[in-house]
């Protein structure tokens, strides 16, 4: 394997990180919204959120990625491979993040919510001032765990041609007729990235305690 090939693997690693982090940046708040909708039992929406979570948790990322990439253009919306990849990862991780946030909400001490209500705080103010500052600490280890799983699922988007690590490795393998060296190198890069996330998880667990439901 040449130095050039190694560089394009590193470039692929950059793409994997950018797309995964974008997926996380969309999926984590989306998961919180879903969890709040279910927690507040908003009629109609709560059931939709429950079905969404159940459906997306049993959907393979590869299948969802193919659906988004091929079906969204038939609705008259143009979509590139990158956007389809980010949407796939965001939608999948949002379902899992919803469960982490919801576990945190269900474990949240009810007295505090009642006390805040007695002080006349509006629901939004209660969320912002009372619930969220404690909730994110409880949810963080679980969210980092989901982020690790997201990175492990991210090769799914290679199927629509996003030039991330896996795609770069198969391309180099096809060019050189030596698929094993780029594959092993790519695996090494993934292991390094995932070990960083596992380390982050240990750190957050030590710092904020083992998250509810994590």
């Amino acid at each position, binding site marked *: 394997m040449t130095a050039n090939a190694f560089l394009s693997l590193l470039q692929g690693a950059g793409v994997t990180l950018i797309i995964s982090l974008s997926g996380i940046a969309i999926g984590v708040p989306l998961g919180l919204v879903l969890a709040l909708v279910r927690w507040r039992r908003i009629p109609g929406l709560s059931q939709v959120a429950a079905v969404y979570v159940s459906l997306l948790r049993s959907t393979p990322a590869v299948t969802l990625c193919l659906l988004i990439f091929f*079906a969204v253009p038939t609705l008259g919306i143009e979509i590139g491979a990158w956007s389809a990849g980010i949407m796939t990862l965001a939608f999948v991780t949002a379902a899992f993040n919803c469960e982490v946030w919801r576990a945190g909400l269900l474990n949240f001490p009810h007295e505090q919510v009642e006390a805040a209500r007695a002080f006349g705080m509006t629901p939004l103010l209660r969320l912002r001032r009372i619930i969220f500052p404690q909730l994110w600490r409880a949810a963080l280890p679980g969210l980092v765990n989901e982020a690790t799983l997201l990175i492990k699922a991210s090769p799914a988007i290679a199927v629509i041609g996003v030039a991330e690590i896996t795609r770069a490795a198969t391309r180099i393998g096809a060019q050189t007729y030596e698929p094993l060296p780029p*594959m092993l190198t790519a695996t090494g890069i993934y292991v390094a990235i995932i070990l960083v996330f596992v380390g982050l998880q240990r750190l957050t667990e030590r710092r904020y305690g083992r998250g509810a439901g994590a």
Partner: protein
Amino acid sequence: MMHGFDVVWEHSDRLLWGVLNTIALSIVGAVLAVVFGALVAILLMSPNRLLRLSVQGLVDLMRCVPFLMLVYLVYYGLPHLGIDFDNWTAGLAALALYNTAYMAEILRGIWSGLPRETFEAATAFGYHGPRLYTRIVFPQVFLAAGPMLGNQLIQIIKDTAFLTIIAVPELTQAASGIQAQYFVPFAAFIAAILIYWALCAIVEGGVALIEKVAEARR
């Protein structure tokens, strides 16, 4: 869009064939992973420190690798070693190998959480070797492992979708084939996703049922 579902319905035999392959891969892969996982769990609980730590290292390493990378490594690597597989067998081998690490970790976790008295009593009664494991240890481990094994089985079902990339004829591959031929992406992949949902719901229902039986035996 409804026309798309008509097309998919006309070719439901292809989807059915895909589902049957997905189910076969998941079940055979899961059974192999549980059997090998149990053997690895024995090594993970070994009193020999060096053996235990090196096996634990391998298990942890495997759990850091994305499944698709392992599929590629098996698919390209085994022919290198002179073992020739068709795609289906290569996919199954990757599935079993990958999940062996997860199963071993699940079983080890439950095993180390069980009270030691029964094991000590069994040893005192002269149980040792394979009989200690098959009669005393694993019945208790598996009785407690139901929900976690169920979760892992769902993960295995979802992992089989990756095998479409090495052209294993499973459910996602079948949906892709129909969509490529008739250009009905929405209907084909929605149908596949709903089938995955049903499969996972069946596993969850099965686990709940087994839990009831396990509860009665405890």
